[in-house]
């Protein structure tokens, strides 16, 4: 199979979808690789390096496209300067792997539905642990966050780190990062690395730990944070107004103090929320810098002009949309590696196929053999076993907005004793059970039937509750069930409670003895075990 790597035609784009390094990996997987002449020049990968890696170089773009089974590129196909459109250049049975943004580019999607073409949108790779190695949005966001700090440092007239010299001393720069997604966290890390003091904000309180682990201070709102989390549930409107107000108030206060603001607040597929208003810009110190990473989606700052630096009240408002392209060498390397990982997931050259059984492939395929396959069908219900929170590995959407944002419920499992749906069911059943217990005495239900009802309901509650127990605590679960099974001591008590010291009483006494061992032993050993479980540095 032949892979074609065309030169990016987007104005100002310096990246390329493959580097000599990733070309080597493709060849190792069994692919043939052709690279358009000069494709990597701006990313500091001259043609000779590609040749050395085993790729062939061609300057005929049209034949490159038409003779390749697979085209890997970065930006969505677009019209070329010679009048042709890249989507039309794709061979009839060819497969395109690139960013597509199908929501924003409906015409392009339509364009691709011709012949037997297949198009895979790298931006639609699902954000699951397994697919992290293919997730270009994360790897690019990381670069954007890094570069944003460097651009800001470039425009800022002062030191980032505090200085103490014979010529006087300066305070470290104060940086505010809004949105603690991948880009936000990278920005925090970079700014900290330069010596700045960083504070960060995110609507998801679960980010607090990550922010703090990067050495920044996490800003809390006066509105209780757990309420802010509920905004993803049913009470969005009433909550979000109050929350939004508190949020803006917080930013207004911060604007007066900080030198640099880096905003990364995005809602997937929607206009970015406006968080830095004109009066906040006016209140900032002259010479301050605002880096708006959401510029392409309309910007988090009112003064942002996409692609440009504007000066408003002496404050630089930067709306660069090509931050990753400003770091072309490594951005290409990461992007290329993401593509190689995807290709390997799809079977390499040997048995390359667009396998719809594979969740990653299913979700990212926009067109398959000329037929529209996007949007993908919704997820089936997840099995209950997987109910564990996995925040550590999934820093995803860059700050989903409080308003109307939906579908990011993770973090709930970290809430102490939160009444989740499972517990709610259990509690409801407990109430039903109680009602049966209380009414049964007067009801004409035979006693045994009533017992069976209680028993089955209790089994059901047990089933619900135990599935939510984290596997790490299965041993304490066993020992605590040992302890509560000790309730059989009740049977022993009834046996002993008589006037005579007969066989029944003695048997009852032995039952009490062993059951008490269970109660004391079970609870104590569980306590002992649970005390061992500690979080890091606690």
């Amino acid at each position, binding site marked *: 199979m032949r892979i074609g790597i065309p030169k990016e035609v987007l104005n100002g784009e310096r990246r390329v979808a493959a580097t000599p390094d990733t070309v080597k990996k493709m060849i190792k997987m069994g692919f043939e690789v052709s690279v358009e002449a000069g494709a990597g020049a701006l990313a500091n990968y001259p043609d000779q390096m590609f040749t050395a890696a085993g790729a062939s170089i061609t300057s005929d773009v049209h034949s490159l496209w038409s003779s390749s089974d697979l085209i890997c590129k970065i930006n969505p196909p677009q019209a070329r300067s010679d009048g042709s459109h890249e989507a039309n250049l794709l061979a009839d049975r060819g497969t395109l792997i690139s960013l597509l943004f199908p929501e924003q580019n409906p015409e392009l999607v339509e364009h691709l539905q011709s012949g037997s073409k297949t198009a895979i949108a790298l931006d639609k790779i699902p954000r699951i642990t397994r697919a992290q190695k293919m997730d270009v949005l994360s790897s690019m966001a990381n670069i954007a966050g890094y570069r944003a700090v460097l651009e800001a440092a470039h425009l800022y007239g002062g030191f980032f780190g505090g200085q103490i010299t014979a010529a006087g001393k300066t305070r470290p720069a104060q940086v505010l990062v809004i949105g603690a997604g991948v880009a936000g966290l990278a920005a925090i890390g970079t700014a900290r690395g330069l010596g700045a003091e960083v504070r960060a904000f995110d609507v998801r309180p679960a980010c607090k730990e990550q922010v703090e682990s990067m050495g920044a201070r996490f800003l809390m709102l006066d509105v209780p944070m757990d309420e802010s989390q509920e905004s993803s549930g049913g009470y969005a409107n009433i909550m979000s107004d109050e929350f939004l107000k508190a949020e803006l108030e917080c930013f207004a206060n911060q604007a007066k103090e900080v030198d640099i603001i880096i905003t990364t607040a995005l809602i997937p597929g929607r206009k970015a929320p406006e968080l830095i208003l004109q009066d906040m810009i006016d209140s900032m110190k002259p010479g301050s810098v605002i880096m708006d990473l959401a510029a392409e989606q309309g910007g988090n700052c009112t003064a942002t002009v996409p692609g440009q630096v504007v000066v408003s009240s002496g404050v630089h408002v930067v709306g660069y949309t090509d931050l990753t392209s400003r770091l072309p060498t490594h951005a290409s390397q990461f992007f290329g590696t993401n593509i190689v990982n995807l290709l390997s997931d799809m079977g390499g050259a040997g048995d390359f196929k667009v396998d719809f059984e594979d969740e990653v492939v299913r979700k990212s395929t926009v067109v398959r053999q000329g037929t529209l396959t996007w949007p993908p069908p919704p997820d089936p219900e997840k099995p209950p076993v997987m109910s564990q929170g996995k925040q550590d590995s999934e820093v995803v959407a860059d700050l989903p907005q409080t308003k109307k944002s939906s579908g990011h419920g993770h973090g709930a499992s970290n809430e102490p004793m939160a009444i989740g749906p499972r517990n709610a069911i259990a509690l409801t059943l407990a109430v039903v059970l*109680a009602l049966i217990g209380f009414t049964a005495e007067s009801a004409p239900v035979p006693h045994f039937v009533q017992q069976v009802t209680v028993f089955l309901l209790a089994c059901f509650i047990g089933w619900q509750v135990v599935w*939510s127990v984290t596997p790490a605590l299965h041993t304490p679960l066993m020992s605590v069930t040992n302890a509560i099974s000790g309730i059989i001591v009740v049977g022993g008590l009834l046996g002993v409670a008589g006037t005579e010291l007969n066989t029944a009483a*003695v048997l009852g006494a032995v039952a009490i003895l062993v059951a008490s061992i269970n109660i004391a032993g079970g609870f104590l050993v569980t306590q002992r075990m649970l005390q061992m479980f500690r979080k890091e540095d606690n």
Partner: protein
Amino acid sequence: MQLQSFVAIPNVAYLGAAILFILSLGGLSNQETARRGNSYGLVGMVIAIGATILLLVVPDAYGTTRVISSENWTLLITTALVGGVIGSVMAKRVAMTAMPQLVALLHSFVGLAAVLVGISTWLTADLAGHGSDLVHLLEIWFGVAIGAITFTGSIVAWAKLRGWLFGKRVPGAPLLLPGRHGLNAIAALTCIGMAVPYVSDTVSQAETAIELEEQLQTAEGVVERLENEPAGTRLMQDEIKKAVAEVERIEAAIQVASQPSTDSRAFLFLMMLTGLTCLLGVHLVIAIGGADMPVVVSLLNSYSGWAAASAGFMLANDLLLVTGALVGSSGAILSYIMCKAMNRSIWNVVFGGFGTDGGNPTGEGTEIEGEVTVTDIEEVAQLARNAKSIMIVPGYGMAVARAQHLVNEFSGMLRKRGCNVRYAIHPVAGRLPGHMNVLLAEAGVPYDIVLEMDEINGDCPETDLVLIIGANDVVNPGAETDESSPIYGMPVIQVWKAETTVVLKRSLGAGYAGVGNPLFFKENNRMLLGDAKDSMSQLTALLT
């Protein structure tokens, strides 16, 4: 009115205790709430016991108060205290590596208690009342049977886990009697068969008691009539004496008939049932191999719940019923998870005799060919120094070598150097569900870097170095590729996808399941032979 409210208090308390028990299990859903959950359980237990004692001393719905002799009070309190002390000492002293044994022992206690409560309930039943109901008698029968199986089964599991059975044989090797399935079936059928004379005897005794009650009424009627006769002739006096004697005789007979006795044939059958089910429990568990002990212990956990629930049925005690059901389902879920992690059905575990029915266990599976690369401490230290991301896969062997503290020290040092160290736990690592997590927690490993197999498997390809300490079958690639392997289909941690793997192992032998491991022959695998504890302490020393 007042009486009614007294009667209601224990009921409300039982309800509260049941809810607290549910919350105590619910609290275990994560580490932060777990301790609070345990306290809920403890409070629930105190409430339940308090309520039961209240139930014993206050008048019942009919206004009669139970009389409890001071001897019995003494017995009750002493046994409870002694049991409490024994339990506390055991809980305090037990080593975390010995948790499976303790859990198994505690299961056996629940089973034993269920047997004793069952027999005691039968003995104290009022046969003239509802004590001879068919349902009630069968509840006792079933409760005793399941209790006895749990009791002896857990004792055998406990002994196997301690490595006590059969001297020097491989710990926990299954003992298979010829025709064991037939023996189990015969035992089960006999248990069902013996229920018939047991029930009919008890019922006929109860009928006798009821008949005697009727006779008593007639006899009392005679006495009354005679006493009301006007003149007291000598003859009459004799008649009255005779009639009174008759009444006394019948009263004595009722006393005997309405109280089940240890001399009766029904009791004999109940004892035979106890004995037979005890043997059945031994036989069932003794035939199960050591590798399956986590499943067996989970299964016995479930049984202990059902035993408690059956005690709830026979005593008509809803709290016991609810608790038993909770515990029973919990054990069932754990067994299911364990079986799933080994890709086996529960029937296969219970009746399978893993890796033994087909003969020599090590003989199965494709022969592996290739070279094993043996490495030394220096090279491993070098690998660890250069790695950005390290995964540690611990197995029970780590705990046996008591290396977990050193492993924690090692991982802590690497983490300080900025290396991303994480632990990968297979569901069946250790001898109990979640056992490995407890051992690591004891050694001081923070729980947030200890991940389950499903959480971490996707990260294997990006891992620079995997250290496999005392684990074998759970990292066996043969489970995915070799269809003839006895563990084929079992989900495993895909360590071979990492850059380099290092296996710390005493020698090049097979794992607990007796299966050879192709991982050892992979190009990117290194073997570090020797005692895990020694190796780890040398490694730690090299890194400082």
